[in-house]
């Protein structure tokens, strides 16, 4: 065995031992849930008091308790439907609940969620391990993230785009099994994306793969058209507008204002210098070169500021991952007081 492997093996074993010790002494990450029986009945809801005389009652599904409270009678022939729902509770809520009434059965440890928590911790550590160097743990994590995320977006695309934005428009009746409240008439314009989609998938067929260029051409054409005006409107015109500033700010009561004037002059001058830098028709020589150089300096200051600002965000991201490990998983810290043992 290589020395490095040995060292890492020892580190992992020690870590594991410490984890077990921590678990025995003060506990480690667990997830609890509260279960609840949901019951729904189909009832006739009369129109509200004061409504027009010709308004008809509507048929709705309501939680059984709610319907009973409003003394509504179930629709004849309908059956009560329901299932058991789970909602997460903090360990503290679980302990307090069980302490108050040890016979409660609605509060319990959730095995899938607890396993999930540990899986998440494993994945977190596996990604971090890449910082040391590429290794099998990272490779597993990488393989998982690629597979899960690719499928994740396919599922989102199907349920959030294809179903409501194409199928529901083309034929509302055909999607009622999944989107029961869908209304409206079929919109035949949506045959266009349907046809284009089919053409796009034509690529999979051995013949006529070039058909797929048509939808591509459509996408690129519409994109170019939309962006051209939108960018000229919002970024081009609006940015010129915002750059039109008085170079000498004079307040009618207070007189000449030095700092606002200075800032405006710097701002306008800097924008112009940067524009000169982007000018393609002239070589950066002589006067133009000098101004362009000033433009680069402004850009560099901009980049420096951007860098400094962004660093903040990146550190917060790391902080939240480490908080997850220390707080949710290892129970080392408890800033929001949710898993410190109650006595």
């Amino acid at each position, binding site marked *: 065995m290589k020395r490095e492997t040995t060292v890492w093996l020892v580190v992992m074993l020690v870590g594991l031992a410490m984890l077990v010790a921590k678990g025995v002494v003060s506990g480690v990450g667990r997830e609890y849930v509260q279960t609840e029986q949901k019951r729904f009945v189909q009832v006739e809801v009369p129109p509200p008091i004061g409504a027009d005389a010709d308004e008809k009652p509507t048929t709705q599904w309501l939680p059984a308790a709610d319907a009973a409270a409003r003394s509504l009678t179930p629709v004849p022939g309908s059956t009560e439907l329901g299932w058991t729902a789970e909602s997460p509770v903090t360990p503290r809520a679980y302990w307090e609940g069980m302490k108050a009434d040890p016979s409660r059965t609605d509060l319990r440890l959730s095995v899938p969620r607890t396993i999930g928590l540990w899986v998440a911790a494993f994945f977190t550590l596996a990604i971090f391990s890449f*910082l*040391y160097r590429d290794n099998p743990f990272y490779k597993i994590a990488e393989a998982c993230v690629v597979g899960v995320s690719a499928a994740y977006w396919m599922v*989102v695309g199907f349920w*959030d*785009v294809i179903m409501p*934005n194409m199928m529901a428009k083309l034929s509302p009746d055909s999607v009622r099994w999944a*989107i*029961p*409240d869908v*209304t409206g008439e079929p919109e035949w314009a949506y045959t266009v994306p349907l046809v284009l989609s089919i053409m796009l998938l034509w690529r999979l067929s051995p013949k006529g793969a070039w058909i797929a260029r048509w939808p591509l051409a459509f996408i690129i054409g519409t994109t170019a058209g939309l962006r051209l005006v*939108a960018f000229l*409107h*919002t*970024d081009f015109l*609006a*940015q010129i507008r*915002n750059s039109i500033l008085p170079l000498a700010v004079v307040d009618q009561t207070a007189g000449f204002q030095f700092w606002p004037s200075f800032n405006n002059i710097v701002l306008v001058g800097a924008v112009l210098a940067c524009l000169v830098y982007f000018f393609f028709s002239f070589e950066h020589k002589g006067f133009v070169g000098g101004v362009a150089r000033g433009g680069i300096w402004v850009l560099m200051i*901009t980049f420096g*500021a*951007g860098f400094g*600002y*962004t*660093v*903040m*965000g*990146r*550190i*917060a*991201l*790391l*902080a*939240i*991952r*480490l*908080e997850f490990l*220390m*707080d949710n998983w290892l129970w*080392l*810290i*408890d*800033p*929001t*007081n949710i898993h410190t043992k109650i006595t």
Partner: protein
Amino acid sequence: MIEKLNNLDRRWIFLLMFLAVAVPIYVIGKTGKTFPETPSALAKATFDAIDDLPDGSRILLAFDFDPASEGELGPMATAFVRQCAEKKHKMYFLALWPVGPQLIQANIEKVILPDFPSYEYGRDYVNLGFKSGNEGVIKVIVTDLAQLYPADIKGTPVEKIPMMDGIRNIQAMDLIVNVSAGYPGTKEWVQYAVTPYPDKIRIVAGCTGVQAPLLYPYIPQQLPGLLGAIKGAAEYEKLVNDRYGGPHPDPKYLEGLRRMGPQLVAHILMILLIIAGNTLFFLQRRRGTSR
């Protein structure tokens, strides 16, 4: 020696960064102490934009971020929801990012359900959910909300939601509060909602550090208030806590302030690294020229 340091294995730097973040989290987590914050003008402007509205105004809360940026944006989102709830504003949640609805739900569960139990879904707040289409969604809902949001996230048609009564589009909102992690986000809201309707739509935003510099050009005409990164979140948290938190605010409302601890240490580390890198560079150059 200089040569060796210059080619320092970057894993040492990684280790330093790890410690710079992990140690403060542990210490602050154990002691609960945070660093003091002085709110900046922009944070105050954001706070005032929400606070100066009469109680019960309509606020559109667009949560355009994902769990990956929750570290920066989570505390802002929480504080926004809390301030709106304290001001009794009507909250309309929606998301342009597919995972936004989960984050909306998480904030409802974190703030509204425990601390504002009298608030009723559909009357005081509503979750309209996610719609795909990026800025296209904005372009549609500025004139016609029902076209894309015929129902809320639970599938309840908007006609049956009391607080949606009379709302044809988002021009009916008194303010848009956007929490944004990138595209689509604050820039698109400014471009497609505020710019075409400058008199009717107002927006304040909280965004990640990386976006903030890009949004400065829109301040203050198109974007009166902006919270940049966790620092902005911490400043805003302080403003909200000072107004509504009482002497001992709930620790869940101090997340941003707590996270400023690792931030400070990590920033100092970054600064030291820049100094170290340059010292090495100059030492090396001097040696290079004297040779």
